């Protein structure tokens, strides 16, 4: 049977939801799998709702378009839940039975009792993951929140490797003809200015990713064959 995950990512503008999904998708392909992404957003502005739909598999993917019934949902920002900043309401709409909700928050959130009941009825696994906190601790800024989440989800699905993710970050920032929108291009230059040089940017991002990966392993969320990854996968020859 094909190993297949349909992932719906919801966050707000500026968090790198689309960039994160590109990196995960590229990482899965780098590791020999198949993946497609469908970004979905309105006007490009900070804190506006953004969704991205990522399909990852070890077999060919034919399906197209938005994902209505995901296996996994990733919530990049607590406001997606608390303020309803999402194209999909409630945030878990369509989550398959025994599905996973990976939520970026420091510890469990207090959900409305109807929402808590519905999540329980479909036996959803709620993984509260402090992605922004990890990003601040490891990279010294919150802009790598998406990297922490992608590391975490990489380990949960088991369809890519840390080396695959590492290469995907390099592809993204060292350029492979990647086409970005105006808004994303502007944000990229902000991110790049915050680091002295690209090498440092990549190393920090990968370090955050690795922290996310290991967090998933330590908490027993990772796919059975996934192990902790210790110290840096070599990033020297970028």
């Amino acid at each position: 049977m094909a190993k297949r995950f349909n992932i719906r990512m919801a966050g707000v503008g500026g968090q790198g939801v689309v960039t994160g999904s590109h990196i995960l998708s590229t990482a899965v392909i780098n590791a020999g799998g198949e993946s497609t992404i469908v970004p979905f957003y309105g006007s490009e502005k900070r804190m506006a709702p953004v969704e991205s739909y990522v399909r990852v598999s070890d077999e060919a993917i034919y399906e197209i378009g938005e994902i209505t019934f995901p296996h996994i949902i990733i919530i990049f920002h607590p406001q997606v839940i608390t303020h309803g900043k999402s194209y999909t309401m409630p945030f878990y709409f369509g989550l398959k039975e025994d599905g996973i909700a990976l939520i970026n928050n420091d510890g469990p959130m207090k959900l409305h009792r109807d929402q808590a009941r519905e999540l329980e009825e479909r036996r959803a696994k709620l993984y509260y993951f402090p992605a922004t906190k990890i990003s601040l601790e490891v990279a010294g800024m919150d802009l790598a929140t998406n990297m922490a989440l992608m590391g975490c989800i990489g380990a949960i699905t088991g369809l890519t490797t840390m080396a695959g993710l590492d290469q995907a970050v390099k592809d993204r920032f060292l350029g492979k003809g990647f086409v970005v929108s105006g808004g994303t291009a502007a944000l990229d230059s902000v991110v790049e200015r915050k680091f002295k040089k690209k090498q440092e940017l990549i190393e920090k991002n990968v370090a955050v990713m690795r922290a996310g990966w290991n967090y998933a392993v330590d908490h027993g969320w990772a796919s059975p064959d996934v192990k902790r990854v210790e110290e840096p996968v070599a990033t020297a020859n970028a």
Partner: protein
Amino acid sequence: MSEALESEQKTNPQGDPITSVAAPKADAKKDPHAEAKRQKIVTPEYMFHEAPRTKEFITGSEAAKEAVRRSSVDLAIAYPITPQSETMQLIGVLYGEGYVKEYYRGEEEVGVMAAIAGGSRAGVRCFTATAGPGTLRGLEGIASWPGHRLPVVAMFTCRVVNAPLAIQPDNIEVSYLINSGMIVFHAENQQDMFDFIMAGFTISEKNDVTLPVGVCCDGFFVTHARGYVRMQDRGLRLPPREAWRGAVPVLDAENPPARLSRDAPVQKSNFMAYNIHAVWQQEVWAAVERSRKYINKYMGGLLTAENVEGADALIIASGSAAAQSREAVRLCKEKGLNVGLIKVRSLRPFPTKELRELCGKAKLIVVPEFNYVGWLAKEVATAIYGFSKAKIIGGPRVYGGQSMPVELIVDEVESGLTGKKSTNVAMSQIMGGTVNPDEVAHFMRSI
């Protein structure tokens, strides 16, 4: 000089050079048409069946561009309607490179379709593309092409025409095109887009066909998304149109006729006029029938069928719905259900004979669609009427271009097999031999 060039480039879209229309840096020594001039003409048989292909990861619009590059196109006319695809912009790049002889922007779709008719009648190979509302705006001209026996290839990016407006790929437009008398193909993905356009030029100019070909796709999913496309070398091209050997004499541009219709009665309301109209239309639709052999020859059939023999149920779909159905077949297999898939590639001519054979033993047929009216379900039901006792579920359907959740298709297969009432498909859309007449009374009333 260099300043002027730089400012010109800034007005163009940033990023990917493939989609950029930026003028190449002036280099007096280099002929921008050099590569196009070196293209080698090969027979359609070699092009479609023998030429080695290499795989590229490109958008549907780029696939259309690459098809046109290899098709010896003389004239392309663009009108950049929103919502459009990048296709006609990319054809402009081909013009710059010398692959297309003439290219300009029309004033609007009525003008574009009329000018395409003029180009085709003058004997040159023509291509245009439009989308959504633009298709319907141009439909007056488009609907007259088959009767004027004009070989043309037009690409239609389906993006909703009914209210409330949307720009996503609802394919309701196809229901208008399939009754115009033209040949209509429906592409599932980028590869189909590439293959169908090239085959379209070849088929449309066959003397016993001499009809326009419309290549439809569900916009956005196909035009804006990337997929793998296997393509022949770009140094090869199809033979150019040879209008002098065509079935219909070309317009003599040096001695233009005072009027296009030589026989006045066609425009009068009398018995002869109606009679002429009747035989004229009969001949158009007979030509649609005659195109079958060429579709079989160059495209490998009007449909593709997978796992039909011994299947518990069949899914019949076209366009993006076929892509979703492939996943539905996989999910059904995981649930222990053996489901076959028939993808209809040619809507006109419709694969009536093929479906009668394939559906003879079927018990359940599910027809998922990306539109409200269910034009494919009606076509299927009409085609197999009397040849199959299958229960036909006309659905599930999504509207306004929503992506069809694969799970909805699986639900229909399951409920159809177990007799459980469907939650997604109205009783009025359930047809076929094993259906209780009382249950479809509503449907009978509504027609």
